């Protein structure tokens, strides 16, 4: 390296070497400190999960929607659907949620732990089956059958219903579509318990 007599040239020569080195150092640490989040995203299924999906031919969060003759929209969504091991042509859905909505906006919400799609358009709902209607009716039963084509629901067992006036116990229940809205029919011996003073205060 040439030597210079005056201070200025020596400083310049020194900087000519030091500055690039500093730049190099900054540049290299840049990638060291860069945040890793974006890189290397794995698909959200573990290898075991993938094998199970393939083995059971499981479809995860499928949904179905259709329209009934009266123009009500029927939708069904579930966590996962897989063929029934015993009878492969029938499917079993887990944590099923269904809605039936009339053009006027009256809604029925159905939920059940499992739903099995037997023949035709019937869906057998079992496991903590609940039906709620926008008119404030809540029906609970162990099993219900939803006909997804006509949007009708029938319970295959005793039901308890919490309704605006009080509480209804009945042996069976069917929900069908009347002329201007849903009709809930409780049969097989029903009992309504009504508390007159409830809500008198408000």
């Amino acid at each position: 390296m040439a030597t210079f007599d005056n201070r200025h040239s020596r400083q310049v020569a020194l900087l000519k070497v030091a500055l690039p080195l500093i730049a190099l150092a900054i540049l290299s640490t840049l990638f060291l400190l860069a945040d890793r989040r974006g890189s290397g995203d794995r698909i959200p299924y573990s290898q075991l999960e993938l094998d199970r999906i393939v083995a059971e031919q499981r479809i995860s969060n499928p949904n179905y929607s259709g329209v009934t003759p009266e123009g009500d929209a029927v939708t069904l969504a579930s966590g996962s659907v897989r063929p029934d091991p015993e009878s492969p042509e029938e499917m079993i859905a887990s944590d099923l949620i269904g809605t039936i909505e009339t053009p006027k906006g009256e809604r029925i919400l159905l939920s059940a732990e499992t739903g099995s799609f037997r023949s035709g358009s019937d869906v057998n709902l079992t496991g903590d089956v609940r039906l709620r209607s926008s008119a404030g009716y809540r029906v609970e039963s162990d099993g219900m059958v939803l006909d997804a084509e006509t949007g009708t629901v029938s319970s295959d067992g005793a039901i308890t219903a919490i309704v605006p006036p009080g509480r209804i116990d009945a042996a069976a229940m069917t929900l069908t579509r009347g002329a201007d809205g849903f009709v809930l029919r409780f049969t097989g011996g029903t009992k309504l318990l009504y508390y007159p003073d409830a809500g008198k205060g408000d």
Partner: protein
Amino acid sequence: QETAIDFGGLRQDTTQPVEVASDALEVNQSDGTATFSGNVVVSQGAMRLSAGRITAIYAGEASAGRIRELRAEEGVTLVAGEDAAEAQSAVYDIDEGSVVMTGDVLLTQGPTALSSERLVIDLVNGTGSLEGRVRTIFETGER
């Protein structure tokens, strides 16, 4: 003319729970009308009112769930203690605690029986009044 009757057995608190049992119940979701059909029995306290069909009429919004009155049709029988009244139809206003029975009313209290066109029963203070052509039928035979 009007005949006042004492319904001692019927004085009761009208805020007691009302139970309506029947073979079937149909609820129309859009207007909330509820129709009980098939040997319907309404019971509240000591009163039993049975009829072929009963329709529940709501006070105000159906979703508020306040039943204003129960309209009983197809042959109504009201029993309380040893008083019994039969008629073609009846309206039980729960909030007011009044039962109005109309159409061939036959009221039997112990041995005596009275018939008329209309019977109004006040459940709060256990009184009633028969209106229209009131005829008294005495039990003449020996018991």
